[in-house]
């Protein structure tokens, strides 16, 4: 699928298109926020951090607000949690790895931009997710 059929779920969340996307946060008096707060200086957050804690979503979330193109039957569980970006903040995100047995607190994680649903017109909506850094799990 060509990039023209993809678009971010919301503007201003992450740099896109990009081979090395970054979350767009903001900073004020040393306090970082994500998503960026209006009237604060925008900053690009680090792409790598460490896994702070996680859980999984094993059933399809109430919809709306969830707008995945799946059904209760076709829903694929996903993992999510917090990644600590040193000196910046802890960010809550979905993970590309859905098996909790393959996630370890403290492991290094890196930002990705991934499709999570396809609209009726074929447009893929993109969101951010962290992936375990290969060969670096503890």
């Amino acid at each position, binding site marked *: 699928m060509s990039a023209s059929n993809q678009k971010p*779920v919301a503007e201003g969340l992450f740099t896109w298109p990009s081979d090395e996307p970054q979350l767009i946060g903001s900073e004020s008096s040393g306090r970082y*926020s994500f*998503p960026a707060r209006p009237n604060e200086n925008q900053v690009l957050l680090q792409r790598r951090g460490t896994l702070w804690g996680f*859980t999984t979503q094993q059933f399809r979330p109430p919809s*709306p*607000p*969830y707008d995945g193109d799946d059904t209760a039957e076709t829903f694929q569980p996903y993992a*999510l949690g917090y990644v600590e970006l040193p000196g910046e903040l*802890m960010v809550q995100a979905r993970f590309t790895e859905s098996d909790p047995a393959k996630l370890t607190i403290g492991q290094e994680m890196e930002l990705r931009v991934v499709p999570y649903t396809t609209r009726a017109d074929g447009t893929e909506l993109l*969101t951010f997710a962290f992936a375990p850094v290969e060969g670096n799990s503890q």
Partner: protein
Amino acid sequence: MTDVAIVGVGLHPFGRYGDKLCLEMGAEAAQAALADAGTEWSRVQSAYVGSYEVSNPDAIVGWLGLTGIPVRGVFNGCATGGTSLQMAAQAIRHGEADVAMAIGMDKHPRGAFSADPSVVGLPSWYGQTGMFLTTHFFGTKINRYMHDHGITAETLARVAAKNLANGAINPQAWRQKAVSVEEILNSAVVNYPLTRYMYCNPDEGAAALVLCRADLAGQFTSTPIYVRAAELRSRREGAFEVQSPSLPVQSAPSPTVDASRAAYEIAGVGPEDVDVAQLQDTDAGSEVIHMAENGFCGDGEQEKWIADGDTEIGGRLPVNTDGGLIANGEPIGASGLRQVYEIVLQLQGRAGQRQVPNNPRVGYTHLYGAPGASAVSILSR
């Protein structure tokens, strides 16, 4: 400062009641509390009525009587019941009323709470991408806590089994069937590491209290229970909280810790003085964490406490003797007042088959919930 006593308690058991109106359940709980105090609505001079689903909970006067008294609706997330108790006690302390009521009721649709993220000030994408669920907070917090403090999944299952076993001997509980530790561990995972039986569910029900100036308590009962403290705290910067797209790296204690410390200080007692407790058990992991956050044990000591049965009826600190949220469900507006109802019964020695055997003098209730609020009360004979 004027002392405040609880002189009557009432419960509309939690569960599912078809077409029955939420306000009707609230009115029945209120009438039960008035009957318990041997009095009538006409004596009540101020009331606080908590609900999430009923937009005008003060409409309960249509059922109880149009006496013209000030009646205030209360909503403060999962801390609503504790907030109603605190405000009713303050109305007495401030001299607005000699006799006041705290009433809570709710009637939730089935399944996980759902709403548009904008109602709590969060962006649409947070809901669209499947992140706007309070249960993610509970799964993530206990996952980290287990890692840091050596708590096992079996301990979580034992806590759920205890609360369901307590529910099985509580004729007013929603869930009255004991479930084995093994079955709880093997039931479907909802949010890793939490399984289906480790979670409470939203449901329906109501609870109510009659409170009065302590020097008037003898007019209503020979066994008043005194409100030694009723404290409410919101979150501080850095607290790990529900529905936070990001958090500071520098952490702060949960509002539970702040509410608990304030309550102990005001009551002039410590955790070692508490004989029976009700701790918010949205899930089994929450109860484990709340044992430490409320000062009853150190982080990690829960593993031994639970293995030794210390929080069972008959243990050193019975917790959630009526089955807690896990066996009763959570009608948000009423949940905290159910906790107080149970503690009052325990302190008065009328909790029936689930009565704790240690002749309890001091009881404790604790609520915690979105968006980061906690209410703690300390009650005593």
